[in-house]
Each structure stands twice: as C-alpha cells, then as structure tokens.
C-alpha cells in the first residue's frame, strides 16, 4: 500500500517535470512547476521529513511560484512576439546528454545505496548528543547547534541575493505586481478577509517558531509564512513599494545575522567554541536567534517579490 502510493507520487513528480520542460506555453510550465512543488512537499512528508514538507510548501511552491509568475508577466511580450524555439544544440544532443546524466545519477545512487551504511555518522552523533543542543527537535539541533555555521551562511546568502537584486533592479514603476492604491476596485470581501487572515498568519508563524524547539517547525517555516503574508499585503496594495529602505527595515534585514554572529562569537568566551552556546542558556539563545532569523528570512523574500528597496504601510 505504502509503496504503491510512493510509486504514484514518483510518477506524478516525473510526469509534471516532463510537462514543465516540454509544454509549449510558458505560463503552463510555470503553473505546473508550482504544482510540482506541492507534490515535492508530499514526497518530503512520505520520506519522514515534515520540516521539509512545511518549508517546501511555503517557499518552494508558494514564494518561488509568486516570483516566477511576476517575472512571467514582466517577460510576457517577448513570448507572444516570437517563441525563441529550441536552443542551438540539436534536440537529439540534449536528449542524449539528459539520458546519460540521469543514468549517471541513477548508477551512482544505486551503488551508494548498495554500500553498507557506516555505523557512525554525523546524523547518529547528532541524535545521540541531542541533549547538549538545548532543543528536542533533531533538525533544529543540527541547524542551530551542531551546524550553526551553515545556517548563518545561508541567511547571509539570502541578504546577498537581495542586495544583488537591488543592483540590477528596474525602476520602481516597473517593479513587481500589485495595485498602486489599496481599495481601488477590489472585491468587497478582500478587506474583511485580510483582517482575518493576516492575524491568523502571524499566529501560525509564531506557533511554528515556538514549536521548532521540540517538533517540526522553526525559523525557516515561520519566516516563509511571514513572507507569504507580506506578498499578500503587497498584492492587495496595503504595502506599497518604496525607493528607499527605512532604518527599521535595515535593522530587520541585518538584525538576525548580527544577533546570530554576536551570540556565536560570544560562544568563544562563554562556551567551548565559536557558535557554541553556554549549556544553561542554550534554549533561550536559540529561540532569540530563531526569532531574528525568521524576520531576516521573511523581509528579504517579501522585498525580492516586491522588486523594491523598501515597503510602506498604506491604510485605505
């Protein structure tokens, strides 16, 4: 039964991926890619990775999809004018390269699966010493305890991507979608619905952040939910793009990184090493870092979608 479901899921994934690559219409490809993201979330759930399922559904399918659709609209006239058609490489060449690379991955994967698993691995070590990390969730323990350097670098990558996007950004009037004024011709139910959805979203994000200590959830998922709220408010005109980043936004953008780095560096004196926490304080410190990280993930993602340097609240 279980394997049959996995077979169906894998088949669905591959069928969608084929359609994404092969379908004629670009819009169709983008929408099917979003559907693929949702199936990936199901696959993560099947593979006992609920944290990944949450993150994939919110970031992989939701935010990436919003970014892709926005870019599709910006690039649309070109596609209507002329389909650029296939690349210079002949189709059989691309097909051969694809089949060979797929076979290579399959052969390597199959060979590696056949090897006997090592008795001692980083994962087993992490599980065995989870008590030292200060949290009960293995994933949060790895992300913020044992491999904190990866998480720190990842938030820096996000900030650098945002700065890079600012460098090549188009003028503000050509920035992302969304009406220029809230309430102009929007459906009657939009405002009451937002009044319900936005506070609920903030509560869900807070819950995900809190639950990261002992069950699936954490800064990434909370940040993704907050970013989705930002996209919603931007699309309904409540948040307007601005040409300048306000001091509060600057603080939110770098605050998580500064806090994480400061606590990490302090670890050299108060704990055993850089990016280690004093044992009694580990949980509160991790929670503080995660809160900063959730904001430092949500704001750049919202700004990347908005295509602007800043956002201003605008009540109707």
């Amino acid at each position, binding site marked *: 039964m279980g394997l049959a479901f996995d077979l169906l899921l894998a088949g669905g994934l591959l069928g969608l991926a084929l359609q994404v690559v092969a379908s004629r219409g670009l819009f169709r490809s983008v929408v099917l890619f979003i559907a693929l993201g949702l199936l990936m979330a199901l696959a993560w759930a099947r593979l006992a990775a609920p944290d990944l399922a949450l993150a994939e559904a919110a970031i992989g399918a939701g935010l990436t999809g919003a970014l892709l659709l926005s870019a599709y609209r910006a690039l649309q006239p070109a596609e209507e004018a002329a389909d650029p058609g296939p690349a210079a490489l002949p189709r059989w060449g691309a097909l051969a390269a694809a089949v060979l690379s*797929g076979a290579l*991955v399959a052969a390597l994967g199959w060979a590696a699966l056949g090897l006997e698993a090592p008795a001692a691995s980083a994962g*087993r070590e992490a599980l065995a010493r989870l008590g030292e990390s200060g949290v009960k969730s293995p994933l949060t323990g790895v992300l913020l305890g044992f491999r904190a350097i990866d998480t720190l670098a990842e938030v820096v990558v996000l900030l650098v991507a945002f700065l890079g996007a600012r460098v090549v950004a188009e003028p503000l009037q050509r920035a992302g979608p969304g009406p220029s004024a809230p309430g102009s011709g929007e459906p009657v139910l939009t405002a009451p619905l937002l009044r319900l959805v936005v506070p609920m979203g903030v509560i869900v994000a807070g819950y995900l952040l809190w639950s990261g200590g002992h069950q699936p959830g954490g800064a990434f998922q909370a940040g993704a939910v907050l970013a989705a709220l930002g996209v919603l408010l931007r699309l309904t005109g409540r948040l307007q793009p601005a040409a300048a980043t306000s001091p509060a936004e600057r603080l939110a953008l770098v605050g998580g990184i500064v806090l994480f780095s400061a606590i990490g560096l302090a670890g050299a004196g108060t704990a055993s090493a850089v990016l280690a926490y004093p044992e009694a304080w580990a949980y509160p410190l991790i929670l503080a870092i995660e809160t900063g990280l959730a904001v430092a993930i949500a704001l750049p993602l919202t700004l990347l979608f908005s295509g602007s340097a800043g956002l201003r609240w605008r009540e109707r």
Partner: protein
Amino acid sequence: MTQAGLYTLAASALAGIGVYGLLARRHLLRRILAVNLLGNAVFLLLVAFARRQPGYVDPVPHAMVLTGIVVAVSATAFALALARRYYAETGLDHLPEDEG
C-alpha cells in the same frame, strides 16, 4: 524495492529531465525552471539517502536540504531579477550565444 531506492530512481530521472530542459530550451525563464528541477533532484536524492536504513532518519541531510531550499529561492529570485533587467535592456528573452 525499498522506498529509498524508489526515490533515488525518481531523483535521477528528475535530474535527466532538468538537464534536458537546460539544454533544449533557451527562454531564460525556462532555463531557470530547469535549474530548479535539477536542484529538486539533488534534494530528493539527499533525503532519500537519509532514509536508507530502516527505523532511522538522518537529520543532517534534512538540515542541508532545508538550507538548500532557502538558498535555491534566493538564487532563483536573483536570477529572475537579472532576467527582467536583461529583457528591459535588450528586449531579448534568451542569450545571444544561443542563436541557432
């Protein structure tokens, strides 16, 4: 066949499809989609491997993939910003070296 084996095969097919999309299509948005498919294949491979032993799930690949998902969306957003600016400057939706 075990679950890890099944998803390993699916990941390799996904990688093949991604490579094909990257080589055979030249619209910039399609290339970005293809790179994302390749990334998803790598994630699927890592998570399938985390489950290769019965009764044990390795948290380290999961952490790597979670980090990877955020890095992938960052890179995608930057690539899309580049593509938009490139289109605004040149009116082209593909790179000139791909002219057949």
